[in-house]
């Protein structure tokens, strides 16, 4: 059944949407958009590392994304001026990654698949990795859900309730690194952050509770994946950007609908 490349692509897109919907909601709530950028751009550096050491790219990506996410999260908790720091880190990670990859022989041609993803080329093994990663992320976030929400709302309240904000931050850092490793093959380093932010931002306009926002973000992400795939088949557009385009269109529709309803 999984022999159809289209079915594999659709399943991969849905798996990704579930993980990015949940995590993306936290990215929005905690204003971590640039954080997602820095971590996903660092994935390119991870690819370079993996290729030069002859490791699977998933491993290289995971390690470098984890290192970047941990660095950024530590700097943030020490009170650095994050806007500038993250901007510098995000773009330098990408530039360093691209330069490093150019030293690896025979990869230049492949570069665009790391930048924009290639969801239509997903194998059964990839699919297992994607769903495994998504399952871990979802399990982590759902397990820590109440504590994560409280910490996100206010760290002092969390402390007073006996929670440890540092531990909850670690949960998000781990999840982000995992999502980046999972999403790289599908939408590429440049658009991972878009998958985190756009569906959740669209969901915000429709939700009254954190849970409904997260669930809607998952749903909007899944619909975007399927619609983007459709567009890609139909007009032969690149799949990753098509998925993000679909999400952006949904965001715009929700925004306009919300404006009209508010009148």
């Amino acid at each position, binding site marked *: 059944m999984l022999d159809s490349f289209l079915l594999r692509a659709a399943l991969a897109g849905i798996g990704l949407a579930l993980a990015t919907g949940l995590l993306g909601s936290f990215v*929005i*709530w905690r*204003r971590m958009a640039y954080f997602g950028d820095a971590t996903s751009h660092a994935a390119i550096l991870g690819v370079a590392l993996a290729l030069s050491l002859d490791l699977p790219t998933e491993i290289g990506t995971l390690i470098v994304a984890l290192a970047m996410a941990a660095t950024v999260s530590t700097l943030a908790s020490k009170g650095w001026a994050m806007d500038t720091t993250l901007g510098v880190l995000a773009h330098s990670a990408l530039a360093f990654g691209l330069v490093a990859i150019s030293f690896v022989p025979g990869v230049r041609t492949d570069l665009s698949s790391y930048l924009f993803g290639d969801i239509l080329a997903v194998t059964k093994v990839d699919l297992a990795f994607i769903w495994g990663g998504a399952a871990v992320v979802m399990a982590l976030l759902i397990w820590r859900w*109440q*504590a994560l*929400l*409280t910490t*996100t*709302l*206010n*760290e*002092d*309240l*969390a*402390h*007073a*309730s006996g*929670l440890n904000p540092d531990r909850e931050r670690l949960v998000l850092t781990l999840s982000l690194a995992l999502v980046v490793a999972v999403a790289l093959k599908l939408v590429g380093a440049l658009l991972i952050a878009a998958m985190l932010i756009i569906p959740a931002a669209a969901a*915000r306009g429709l*939700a*009254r*509770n*954190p849970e*409904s*926002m997260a669930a809607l973000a998952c749903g909007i992400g899944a619909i975007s994946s399927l619609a983007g795939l459709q567009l890609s088949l139909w007009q032969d557009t690149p799949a990753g950007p098509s998925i993000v385009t679909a999400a952006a269109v949904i965001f715009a529709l929700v925004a306009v609908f919300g404006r009209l309803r508010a009148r």
Partner: protein
Amino acid sequence: MMLLSARNLSVRLGGVDVLQDIDIAIQANEIVTILGPNGSGKSTLLRALLGIIPLSSGRVTRAPNVRIGYVPQRLAMDRSMPMTVRRFLSLPKRVSDADAAKALEKVGMSGSAQQQMTDLSGGQFQRVLLARALLCNPQILMLDEPTQGLDQPGEAAFYRLIDEVRLDSGAAVLMVSHDLHVVMAASDRVICLNRHICCEGTPRVVSNAPEYRALFGLGTQGALALYQHMHDHNHDHHHDHAHDHSDKHDHASKETHHAG
């Protein structure tokens, strides 16, 4: 029963000694109020006692598994997270609808369960924070300027509620306040703070202390006269009182303002 205590507690923030050598102990069933001008370290003391900020020296001892209900001075809630009042009350521990409704009723916010937190006024927000703090069935309530944003009847009702909670549950209350006159009537013990403890004791003792009058820029009369005046009345009814003597109230709040 001793619920919480600190010995030689000192806190440094940004290279400045914000608190020095604080000794404090909170017993069950007592209402302790911290008074002090702005920047004197009141909020910092609560946060240090809660373990939110590290101590530079000294130690805090809590009774094992003590439940603390905390109402912070400021809570900036971001519009990016949708959150109804009902949902907020279930963080981090889920509570039943019945308990949530009861808590909202106690603080005078029945019927607000489905409102968004970001749509509440300052005073309403403060009441919901208190409802949430009450829901953990606290042994200690720590309230940082809890009546800011409340109107006068709201403020009076607030102190009645605190008293009620104390009577019902035996909880201790540690609060920061600026309302000198109400504090004097509502507290068992007052602590005057200005980076260190200037003076402490029963309201009557403190209001006679020269350190206290110096701290608040009061003359030899000021709050003392006001306190004794109020004390001669039946002080179980602060609410009525505040109305009967609204001129006094204005007078007191001006002085507070001046001190801060």
